[in-house]
């Protein structure tokens, strides 16, 4: 099915984007002998910041800030054999050329699960949490964030904690 292909490629593309953090230390020690200089620490910090930024970009791009469009659902509804009493239809809906079933909308991918982030530990990270609140500072629903139930609960807890601790504004998205 087309849907399953889409689903798998979405998950794979997200995974491939994230560089594995822990892998380099053991792998490189076998092959290379690297000398550590004092200036390396500055580079490391920059690298980790760059890494953090790329993570945030991944999250930002995969959030659907509007509730999922009902276009696909509407098409599914209008397909032949799916009429119900009281429905409104167009003449073209009665054409035989339309396929009988449509692919359901793609299943949302939980970014935090793939990136292996625990939102509760990141309660201090206003930039990360800002992705899960609307411009008015309200928490997004699970439809919009695409998170699993468990992670949605954790994000909610983290945001409420951050609000209480004066890290996030309850009425605006500042970061």
């Amino acid at each position, binding site marked *: 099915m087309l849907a399953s292909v889409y689903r798998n490629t979405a998950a794979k593309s997200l995974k491939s984007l994230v560089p594995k*953090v*822990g892998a380099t230390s053991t792998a490189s020690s076998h092959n290379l002998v690297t000398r550590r200089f004092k200036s390396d620490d500055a580079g490391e910090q920059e690298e980790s910041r760059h890494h*953090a930024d790329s993570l945030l970009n991944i999250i930002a791009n995969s959030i659907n800030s509007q509730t999922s469009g009902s276009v696909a659902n509407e098409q599914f509804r209008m397909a032949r054999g799916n009429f119900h009493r009281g429905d409104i239809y167009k003449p073209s809906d009665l054409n035989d050329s339309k396929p009988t079933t449509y692919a359901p909308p793609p299943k949302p991918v939980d970014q935090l699960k793939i990136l*292996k*982030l625990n939102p509760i*530990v990141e309660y201090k990270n206003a930039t990360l949490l800002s992705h899960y609140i609307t411009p008015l500072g309200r928490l997004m629903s699970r439809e919009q964030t695409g998170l699993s139930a468990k992670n949605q609960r954790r994000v909610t807890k983290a945001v409420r*904690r951050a609000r*209480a601790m*004066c890290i996030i*504004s309850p009425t605006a998205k500042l970061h």
Partner: protein
Amino acid sequence: MVFYELFCISRTRLVEANLKDLVKQTSMIVMNKGGVVRNLKPLGEKQLPYRIRKHQEYHVQGYQWLMQFDANPTVVNELNKRLKVDPRVLRHAVIRLGSKLENIVASAEKTGTRV
């Protein structure tokens, strides 16, 4: 031992000696009770997202810092009591990070927050 994290917002424009004294006092509370202070991290002076009222004053800016430590749960009570009364502290929260170091470190490395 359980791993805790104290996230504290103290007043801005404290004299450096005063701020150091505050941080030292809170660390000593933990250490006197047999705890271990693992990390003291300054997070900088920031504009607060909303106005705070504390100790009969309004505050718009605060100096954020972080203390990570292992200690008994009884120490947390003591900390909270002292920080609530301290006039230099605006907000404080002691958060339990977990009981296993591996879980905490693995998660923190990803977003560049150092444990």
